[in-house]
């Protein structure tokens, strides 16, 4: 159930609150060179340590609040990505990490590319919440900033939340 139909109901507010309180993320590589993926794993290591913000990498999309998607979305990977999105509990935020996920990057026009990622996701859910974190790769600081910015934009308190929902939030790599 996409958040675009969010009503001011207690259940939806609780869902959003839990989304903000601690974010469990599932990492999906749809055909990436690995740089973004390694920087994502770097987030867990002592220098960046995102676990102190409650951000946790989980092993299954069913437990995830957010998908960290890297890669161009190759032809073979596209259907897998859609399947993962379907399995992910809603509400969820799809983070397009890196230039490839944001818009195929340097691989534009390559014959095996079916992306970018937002097109692939919107095929199954036109109202999907998608956030873009550009960079090649985005630095870990930019990724953290992107996650925080996107989740802050989803505050139920603010009146414009339902209007902002369905829009894209661009994180400045800084």
């Amino acid at each position, binding site marked *: 159930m996409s958040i675009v139909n969010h009503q001011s109901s207690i259940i939806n507010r609780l869902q959003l609150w839990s989304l903000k309180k601690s974010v469990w993320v599932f*990492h*999906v*590589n*749809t*055909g*990436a*060179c*690995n*740089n*973004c*993926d*390694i*920087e994502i*794993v*770097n987030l867990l*290591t*002592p*220098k960046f340590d995102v676990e102190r913000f409650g951000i946790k990498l989980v*092993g*299954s999309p069913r437990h995830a609040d957010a998908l960290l998607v890297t*890669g*161009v979305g*190759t*032809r*073979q*990977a596209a259907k*897998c990505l859609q399947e*993962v999105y379907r399995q992910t509990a809603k509400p969820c935020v799809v983070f397009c990490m890196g230039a490839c996920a944001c818009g195929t*990057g*340097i*691989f534009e*026009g*390559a*014959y*095996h*590319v079916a992306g970018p990622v937002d097109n692939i996701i919107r095929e199954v859910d036109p109202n999907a919440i998608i956030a873009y974190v550009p960079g*090649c*790769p985005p*630095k870990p600081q930019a990724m953290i900033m992107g996650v925080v910015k996107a989740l802050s934009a989803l505050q139920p308190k603010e009146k414009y939340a339902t209007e902002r929902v369905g829009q894209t939030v661009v994180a400045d790599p800084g």
Partner: protein
Amino acid sequence: MKEPLRKSVLAVGPFHPLQEEMEFFQLTVEGEKVTDINVRLSYNHRGIEKLSETLQFDQVPYLVSRVCGICSASHPLAYVQAVEEIAAVKPPERALYVRTIINELERIHSHLLWVGLAGHFIGYDTVFMWAWKYREPVLDLLEEITGNRNNYGNVKVGGCREDIPDELKPKILQELDQIEKKTEMLTKAVLDDPVLHARLKGVGILKKEDGIKYAVTGPTARGSGIAIDVRHDDPYAAYADLDWKVISQPEGDVFAKAVVRLLETFESIKMVRQALAKLPKGPVAVDVKEIPPGEGCGHAEAPRGETFHYVRSDGGNRPVRHKIRAPSYVNVPSFKASCIGADIADVTLTLAAVDPCYSCTERIAVVDGHNAVIHDDEELLRLSREKTARIRKDLGAPEMKLEGL
């Protein structure tokens, strides 16, 4: 009457929590032993070789640097060397040294990355955290020199795009001293740990003759007694001017490959120090006006093994054909030789020991399991860690000595 052993198929992937890329290995097992492996690649295939033909020669380094994030210095280097062969161009001495320094810094952080991942696979998350913590200063150095932690964009046909400013030398040397100290402590902790000896020795053995048949390279080969290294065999950049040794171990198991990578890290630190001391003055690039018709082969020793590029030119602005072969392309299939007959609990570790970079290989596998019992994907990680826990218990649960880290 004993029940016949049931053949079952373990599907690993496509989203394996241990690996960063999607992959699909279909393992056929009987009881606890692997009897066959099938690999389907495709998830990571982007079509880079074809894309290269649409780019100009001087645009291609940016493309190939993104073939693989962690070999992102070796791919463009092998490519420009192939083109420099066609054009009969020799970069200036200083450029050769700068290329060497960047490539060795990459090797240091790549090997530390591997040590961390291997630690994670067997349940030593402290090793994972420390190894990845100590690769950060190397990434910061690379960012100061080239502008990016990864994807350096540092080489071009004819030399380098950027120089290493002399003012940066003291800082690089200082960081290297720290990294060397920490790597020494990590190495000692790993090599002295009885649990790791028991867990890694004799596991995933790749015999020398199989290594040759599968044409393996890099630490995968050197860990099986095949002492090949492009930096030594067909020297490029400034390697012929530096004093260093090729590290190899004969046993062929995961422990041997770990030793090779750890000791190579020290050789890399040595090489960067020497290269900085001997860095000649002068420009870092020569102008290259055109690429005549011809063909060239360029290879470089990436952290995972030999990266090989073949380029053909017809005198125009773009390559007519550009073949990219990353080391994992030949290393990963050797998994068949090292894994058949192995315990399921050792399979992921054995695969990790070739340090596979699927994006280099441009693929990740998918195999359908027909009529097969599919186990949970996380099962293999759990089995691997459980095996380590059992070994620790048998040895009286000694703690790993990580003082000073």
